[in-house]
């Protein structure tokens, strides 16, 4: 029983990381249908931002807090630049977008290697975030890592902020308008180009934020993005493209599945089982957990 509860906790903490890395994609992939393989490198950019900031801001806690908005801007700017240079030419060619952005990701990785060196770099976490809280005491205590708690809080805050932005602000309405009917939005006087770029800025910026958070739990190096990008895409696909709600639920479900299966089998088997389960799930619901029922014709 404790094991199940404990693994559920672990699953939630895995899910929090998944949610955070997938959140930016829910905008760029989910809303705009752009398969951006360089998204992982935007996460990397966020992580390196933290590293650079720590060189000038020595207090680990402060530098982490400062890094959040700065990484958002840095990764967001990279994203907007990518959108302007390449992606806007490719909106109707999704697989080409995938391949082109894969080329971009190769170049960004090499750039990181040349600028920061090939080995991973180190950031310091505030001591507070390297501990854990005890949820249930006793011989086999149930604990929750503070770093994961921080990531969970951050992820939830980002989800709330994103959904409020999409729902309440004029920008959000414009984004949704463009997503639902590009042509109509255009004739209604919305500059779809600007909306696209802004949406891409926000989505990529969220990747940067995820990068800051990842410095607490994982490595910071040139290839850190490639390891997580497919997981992030899977979360979106299973959740249903364009559905924030689905993204949130699926991130936690996959996290818990992974952690429970991992406990009873091995990491590899758990990963394979999760992937197979995803493939099977998509047979059952080819459009993901939540779908926008549309009447797209031909």
């Amino acid at each position, binding site marked *: 029983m404790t094991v199940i509860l404990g693994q559920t906790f672990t699953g939630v903490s895995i899910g929090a990381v998944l949610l955070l890395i997938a959140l930016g994609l829910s905008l760029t992939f989910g809303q705009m249908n752009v398969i951006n393989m360089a998204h992982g490198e935007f996460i990397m950019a966020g992580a390196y931002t933290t590293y650079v900031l720590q060189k000038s801001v020595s207090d680990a806690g402060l530098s982490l807090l400062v890094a959040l908005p700065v990484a958002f801007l840095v990764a967001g700017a990279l994203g907007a630049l990518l959108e302007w240079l390449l992606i806007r030419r490719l909106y109707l060619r999704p697989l080409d977008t995938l391949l082109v952005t894969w080329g971009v990701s190769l170049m960004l990785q090499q750039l990181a290697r040349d600028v920061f060196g090939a080995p991973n770099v180190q950031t310091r976490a505030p001591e507070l975030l390297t501990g854990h809280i005890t949820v249930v005491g006793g011989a086999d205590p149930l604990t929750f890592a503070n770093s994961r708690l921080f990531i969970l809080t951050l992820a939830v805050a980002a989800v709330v902020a994103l959904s409020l932005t999409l729902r309440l602000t004029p920008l959000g309405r414009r984004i949704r*308008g463009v997503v639902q*009917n590009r042509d*109509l939005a255009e004739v*209604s006087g919305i500059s779809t180009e600007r909306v696209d770029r802004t949406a891409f800025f926000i989505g990529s910026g969220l990747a940067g934020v995820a990068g800051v958070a990842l410095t607490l739990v994982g490595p910071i190096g040139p290839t850190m993005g490639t390891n997580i990008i497919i997981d992030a895409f899977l979360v979106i696909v299973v959740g249903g493209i364009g559905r924030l709600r689905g993204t949130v639920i699926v991130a936690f479900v996959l996290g818990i599945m992974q952690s429970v299966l991992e406990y009873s089998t091995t990491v590899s088997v758990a990963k394979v089982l999760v992937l197979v389960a995803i493939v099977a799930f998509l047979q059952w619901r080819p459009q993901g957990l939540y779908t926008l*029922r549309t*009447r797209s*014709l*031909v």
Partner: protein
Amino acid sequence: MTELSGLRVRGLRVSFDGFTAVDGVDLDVRPGDLRFLIGPNGAGKTTLVDAVTGLVRASGSVRFEGTELLGRSVHRIARSGIGRTFQTATVFEELTVLQNLDIAAGAARGPLTMLRRRRSVPEPVARALETIGLTERSGSPAGTLAHGQKQWLEIGMLLVQDVRLLLLDEPVAGMSHDERQATGELLRRISAERTVVVIEHDMDFMRSFARSVSVLHAGRVLSEGTVAEVQSDPRVQEVYLGHAAVQDAGPTAAGPHPEHAGGAHAGSAVQEV
């Protein structure tokens, strides 16, 4: 013709996420009829055709020549002799006119025929090319055809497909006057031996060629009969005028409208009626 033949729709109902687009339609179209479906935007005309051809899930009953169609997959319905066209002409743009027609003619081909090249032009395809007047363009990619020619090509594809029920969604939209006349003549010829249902907003066209008319409104059949009967039906006039009032009040076509764009036709239709 026995009473089994023709299209017979009973209690057809289609809804999307709570919005009911077709709300209990009954419809009978006999062989040899040239039936026009009219109605304001959102009346459920296209959805009705979608339901008959299996594109959307529906409840109720749709029988053609005595066979129940609902629940069958799209291609099975197509194989039982039902063909349709779309509001925006959808031909295979990268393929030539000839290839388009050849594909339409070949659903029943066996694997061996499929894996071989086409060495000659099949007889029905050659005839259809003549009928739709595209023999000269047979080698051109369909994407290079003029708009009206594409719509003819679509009709030609239905001809070689040898369907017994044709469902045409705005076949003359965007055509010139002469082209409309030619298309109308063609439909009249076709309907001699088949059942033809046409969704149309062009009231002139309807008056010239319709043998019978059904008016749809808000997912139901509002009125049915000859052109004259329908035009004199006060309910029809009310619906069109009422609809026009809404249309004039503001171009709010942005809503969760299941119908595709096409507001301009509706506007002109109002003046026609």
